[in-house]
């Protein structure tokens, strides 16, 4: 016989035990976990992954003496090298596609791939924003149709579609308020913002020229209505309020709050970051608000993309609608669409343009596909399941974690806990980093500011009961260790691509670009 010339002898593997990280490898890689250099280290200035005609040396140029003598110092890679580089980088990221991503107030829901497909249809993706109206009727139709459903879902008068992100939408809403006040000859100086608000609220109000005053939260995690009423007066332009708020609670007094602000001559801006909790069940217009931005990348599932692009249309009350930014889409009697731009009829009272072109079309197509996919029944189920999931997490953990505001009643779509009860020296950060080792993205930490060591958990409607049970089990175990003072928690994460990073060193001597 010819006895096994390959030399490969199948056998049962022996049990392996290794201390700590185990033996180092010569590459620094660990099987599927591959280290990757920077393009400046692996690429070269002459390499190129695109086939282009070689420039002819004789061609005369009309560059007016501005020609450059050498190409920019940018490294290039061939296509296979490039694909490998970015594929390796991608594997160092956590993502919704990998697991539960319970980042409070961020609404990390599933991003349907149908939306990606429709956004890439040539009739949307390959359109220039300044094509003549007769060649873009379908695109204007998308904007008009999405606008219609946003207005319908919020019970408002109209919507400004051009803001490019949530904070940009906030700015749009506050500028509408300012324009309306100035138009009635009553410019006011102060914008009221609850202390639990997201940082963009005061930053936006200050940017729009307002003096920002904080209104404290009451003991129940809701705005202190008495303090608000006491502060209202002829110098108050309005109130920026988040509802459901950043503590995960519905502002029960919302209708009365709006009435009080209106009675004092001000307007109410609602931060719509948490609209997912109520979509399809509550129309913010019925509460009496004047403006609210809608994060299409939260409630309507457009991808977060590692930090944008977002999209932040702003729904407006009848009082603020005339001041909406340019451009906007109108429908003629014959059913055709027009864009109203600078100098066009009807642009008169608008406060002006707040970005080039017409907004985040690539997000509009995705959001419209999402709304149509869910329909009226599906959207009500979205908010219902989102709230159910959050309450399930809240009740499953409240015996080991302090829930400062939700003892008595339900929360909305996110559950808020504090670090009370942790052993001395153990923090919310330790819990967050330990969750990474368990295979979860941490919750939002240290926000809102009104709760010490805040942990804000928003599971969204896209998690199954099994996924929630696994998460609850992991978090419970970690919190028990934090309460008991298990020192090993400070070492987490142990199994991520990187251990805890030195943010102090990064900030003291910032290195923001690569250099040899």
């Amino acid at each position, binding site marked *: 016989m010819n006895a096994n010339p390959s030399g490969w002898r199948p056998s049962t593997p022996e049990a392996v035990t290794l201390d700590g990280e185990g033996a180092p490898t010569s590459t620094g890689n660990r099987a599927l976990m591959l280290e990757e250099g920077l393009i400046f280290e692996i690429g070269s200035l002459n390499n190129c992954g695109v086939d282009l005609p070689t420039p002819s040396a004789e061609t005369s140029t009309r560059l007016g003496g501005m020609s450059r003598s050498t190409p920019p110092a940018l490294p290039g890679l061939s296509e296979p090298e490039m694909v490998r580089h970015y594929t390796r*980088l991608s594997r160092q990221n956590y993502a919704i596609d990998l697991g539960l991503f319970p980042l409070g107030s961020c609404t990390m829901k599933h991003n349907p791939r149908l939306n990606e497909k429709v956004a890439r249809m040539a009739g*949307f993706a390959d359109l220039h924003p300044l094509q003549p109206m007769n060649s873009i009727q379908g695109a204007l139709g998308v904007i008009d149709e999405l606008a219609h459903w946003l207005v319908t879902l919020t019970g408002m008068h109209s919507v400004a579609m051009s803001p490019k992100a949530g904070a940009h939408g906030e700015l749009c809403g506050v500028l509408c308020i300012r324009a309306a006040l100035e138009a009635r000859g009553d410019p006011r100086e102060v914008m009221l913002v609850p202390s639990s608000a997201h940082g963009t609220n005061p930053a936006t109000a200050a940017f729009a020229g307002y003096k920002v005053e904080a209104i404290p939260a009451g003991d129940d995690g809701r705005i202190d209505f008495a303090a608000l009423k006491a502060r209202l007066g002829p110098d108050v332009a309005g109130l920026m309020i988040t509802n459901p708020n950043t503590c995960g609670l519905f502002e029960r007094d919302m209708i009365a709050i709006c009435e009080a602000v209106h009675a004092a001559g001000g307007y109410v801006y609602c931060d719509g970051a948490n609209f997912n909790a109520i979509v399809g069940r509550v129309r913010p217009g019925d509460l009496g608000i004047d403006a609210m931005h809608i994060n299409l990348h939260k409630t309507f599932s457009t991808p977060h993309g590692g930090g944008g692009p977002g999209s932040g249309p702003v729904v407006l009350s009848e009082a603020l609608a005339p001041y909406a930014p340019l451009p906007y889409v109108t429908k003629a009697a014959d059913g055709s669409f027009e864009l109203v731009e600078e100098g066009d009829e009807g642009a008169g009272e608008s406060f002006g343009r707040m970005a080039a072109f017409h907004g985040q079309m690539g997000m509009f197509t995705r959001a419209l596909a999402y709304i149509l996919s869910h329909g009226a029944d599906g959207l009500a189920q979205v908010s219902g*399941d989102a709230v159910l999931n959050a309450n399930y997490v809240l009740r499953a953990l409240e015996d080991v974690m302090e829930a400062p505001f939700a003892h008595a009643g339900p929360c909305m779509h996110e559950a808020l806990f504090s670090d009370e009860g942790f052993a001395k020296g153990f923090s919310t950060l330790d819990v967050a980093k330990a969750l990474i080792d368990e295979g979860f993205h941490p919750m939002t930490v240290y926000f809102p500011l009104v709760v010490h060591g805040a942990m804000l958990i928003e599971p969204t409607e896209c998690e199954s009961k099994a996924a929630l049970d696994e998460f609850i089990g992991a978090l419970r175990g970690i919190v028990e260790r934090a309460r008991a003072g298990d020192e090993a928690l400070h070492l987490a994460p142990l199994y991520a691509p990187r251990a805890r990073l030195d943010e102090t060193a990064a900030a003291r001597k910032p290195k923001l670009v690569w250099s040899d």
Partner: protein
Amino acid sequence: MRYLPLTPADRGDMLSAIGASSIEALFADVPSAALLDGPIESLPGHASEMAVERHMARLAGQNTAAGEAPFFLGAGAYRHHVPASVDHLIQRGEFLTAYTPYQPEIAQGTLQMLFEFQTQVARLYGCDIANASMYDGSTAAWEAVAMARRITKRGKALLSPGLHPHYAGNIKTMAKFTGDQIVYDAPSLSADAGEDALIAQIDGETSCVMVQYPDILGRLPDLAKIAEAAHAQGALLVAVVTEPVALGAIRSPGELGADIVVGEGQSIGVGLQFGGPYLGLFACRSEHVRHMPGRLCGETVDASGKRGFVLTLSTREQHIRREKATSNICTNSGLCALAFSIHMTLLGGTGLAALAAENHRLACLAADKLAELPGVSVLNDSFFNEFCLVLPTDARALVRDLALDGVLAGVSLGRLYPGEEGLANGLLVAVTETTSEDDIDALVTAIREKLA
């Protein structure tokens, strides 16, 4: 509903665990007057993937896509070929469905990409540093005006007439509310990029001079001359680049003396997308870093000494500084930055130069052929891939008519500057590597026929 994993049985079990009678009971805090007692009116029920796709395809079909016609539009948005690998990679779920890298240990992919992106932008612009991107070029331009005010403590910004009118419009809107003084006039139809007239307006109150390069009419202003004059008055030069491919052929604004360089990155990797989402680029001198808006990614080490990346200098930002932040901006344009970075990595410096050369070659060809039309002239002495034609007729009406004949001829100045009589006959024509010589001939023929 296909996106919702809970089963009716799960919901029942979970409600029992919570001790609630129904999902509706969890909405007890909502005033009953505001709680709907049925589904949203007029919105149909849920729809299948196939039905939604069909609806969207019908709307898409009502547009003339750029690829279906001889196409010559630019004016701040350019049609370039995006390699197939770019769109494939940005759809990897680990990039597409990740969030802002607040937990750096599990976001090194996004963070390293941003660090590479910042370096690419800084080098492209000839600046020391760049941020992790802004919403788009027009909003980045406003942020530069605000930043120049913070640095110089002066409140008057001088905008060149060659600045994109939408950028100027956005800046004027913002300035109304912040109290900045903005000096801006529409351009006139002249081959002269207007450096001397601009320099004459700079004074000791000027915070910055903002100059687009190439400008809205495609002209190439002498940035070095303007930089020198601005610096002599203690003002900053802010350069705006709406066509980054140009920087493969012309000298970088930083090298010519610009203190801040901002612009639109859409040309590289992002695509037209009917105007958004786009990609704001923002770079400056390192001494101004603490006045910079937007996210910044920086290099550091982890607890075991390995190189890693984090978001840094975040005390400038709204979530910490609240009403004292440098900007209210909360996001960047992450996925578009990724597309830009991937495409730029494929090109490299030599590829970008070759791409730019091809754009310029075709633009020169188009300009020569169009200039031969009777009554038509090319305004520019200098240009990169876009120039201004002066027609013997109203350009906006001509563009509309040509679109009906299946030719997307360019951007009329009437569209960009409504009501400016002196500009009504101007037509901006952009030519890129996606333009074929047949397309150019089709445009020449179509205009000739309309003018006959």
